[in-house]
């Protein structure tokens, strides 16, 4: 995103809308720091500019991935869906993506507020790959990997910045402690923040085994989260 200096009237209305704080005033004109801008488009969609000074031109590779990961109204090339993730367990009673005895783990880099460079995503993805997880094949970050066995992300995107990018993976429940330990070590080295989640199926007695595992590992979790109610149909055959 850019701002037409000839049109800008320096009203500063757009400045607070930028989640990345990439808009500032210079010589009585609003300017966007192109390195920090993640192309989320919120400045444009806010309607804050009374003179239509925003210039929203299609970006070329590799910058074009910024909008795909940051703007929820832009479909991602790898999924065809708007947003930066997948259906994960939201439709699981229909898809059977997460199987009994397995856990789904997601690390959303840059959320909240800070944004993230893909070099941080790459570092953690490679650390997780070493303990034998399976990356979600339909995930946009997975689509950027040179090799899904190593988790290595292609070099030409590593300096690109996104509002957020999500690693999604699954692994057998017994691998949980090793995966979480690998994550805890790798996350110490990142230059941003990440929001982390773990999904599990609910047992017939309404217990969720992941809770016990997290408690044993001393990893806290929030009192609130997402519950797939299980009303979707047709039901996946073989699910719980």
């Amino acid at each position, binding site marked *: 995103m850019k701002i037409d200096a000839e049109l800008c009237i320096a009203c500063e209305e757009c*400045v607070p809308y930028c989640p990345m704080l990439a808009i500032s005033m210079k010589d009585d004109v609003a300017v966007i720091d192109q390195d920090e801008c993640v192309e989320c488009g919120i400045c444009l969609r806010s309607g804050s500019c009374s003179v239509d000074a925003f210039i929203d031109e299609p970006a070329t590779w590799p910058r074009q991935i910024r909008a795909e990961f940051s703007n929820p109204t832009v479909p991602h090339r790898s999924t065809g869906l708007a947003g930066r993730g997948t259906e994960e367990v939201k439709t699981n009673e*229909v898809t059977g993506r997460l199987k009994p005895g397995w856990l789904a783990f997601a690390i959303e880099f840059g959320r909240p507020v800070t944004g993230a460079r893909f070099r941080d995503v790459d570092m953690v993805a490679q650390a997780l790959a070493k303990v034998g997880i399976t990356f979600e094949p339909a995930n946009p970050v997975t689509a950027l990997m040179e090799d899904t066995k190593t988790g290595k992300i292609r070099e030409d995107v590593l300096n690109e910045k996104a509002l957020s990018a999500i690693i999604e993976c699954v692994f057998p429940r017994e691998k949980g402690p090793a995966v979480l330990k690998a994550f805890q070590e790798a996350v110490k080295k990142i230059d941003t923040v990440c929001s982390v989640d773990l999904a599990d199926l609910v047992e017939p007695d309404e217990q969720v085994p992941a809770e016990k595992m997290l408690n044993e590992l001393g990893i806290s979790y929030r009192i609130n989260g997402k519950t797939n*109610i299980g009303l979707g149909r047709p039901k996946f055959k073989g699910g719980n």
Partner: protein
Amino acid sequence: MTHTLHRSGTRESLGGDFVFLFMPAFGINNIDSGPKLRKFLEIAQHHNPVNMGDAFYGNQFAKGLDNVMNNIKKDGAVVHAVFDNEEDAAHMLKDVKEADLGPSLVVSGIFDRVQGLCQKNGIHRHAATYSLGIWGKTENLPPDDVLDIITMCGHGMISAARINSVADDVRAGRKSAEDAAKELAKQCDCGVFNPARAAKLLAAMAK
């Protein structure tokens, strides 16, 4: 898409925050699901939603509710309805279960409250997704009161600066906390932002 997860806050504040997400599985039951998604939003309208939206189109505050209802794609979308109290959420869950529409329903909220709603309706939950919180350079984050509002838009469309700006407006008496919260809600495209809860948080910030 974890956009309805990772909402921060106290138990008291989160007790007024129930997000219903309704979507088909693409490639399995999405064909001709548009009318079912619209029916879900029609049901929601009977239970005092504080926000509704479609991830593919926009939310009621930015686009208008009629436009949201009339622009659901024939072969699938991701629609949301947000409730600010357990009673309305309970009635909504009961009616959606009885409608037996086919797409999947995900409810975000305090786990024990949501589990209670399910038990009352004879529902065995399918899966749970836990937020393990924020890791990494957390020293770069804004204060908790700002984060509690920011995290209600999972796609990160609401900046800390914008929240501080409208909180200043409320503090100065230039606008009400309710109007300020509705302004913020426009920016959360999917319609999962809870303006009723945000108004309470903004009012507290403005003191």
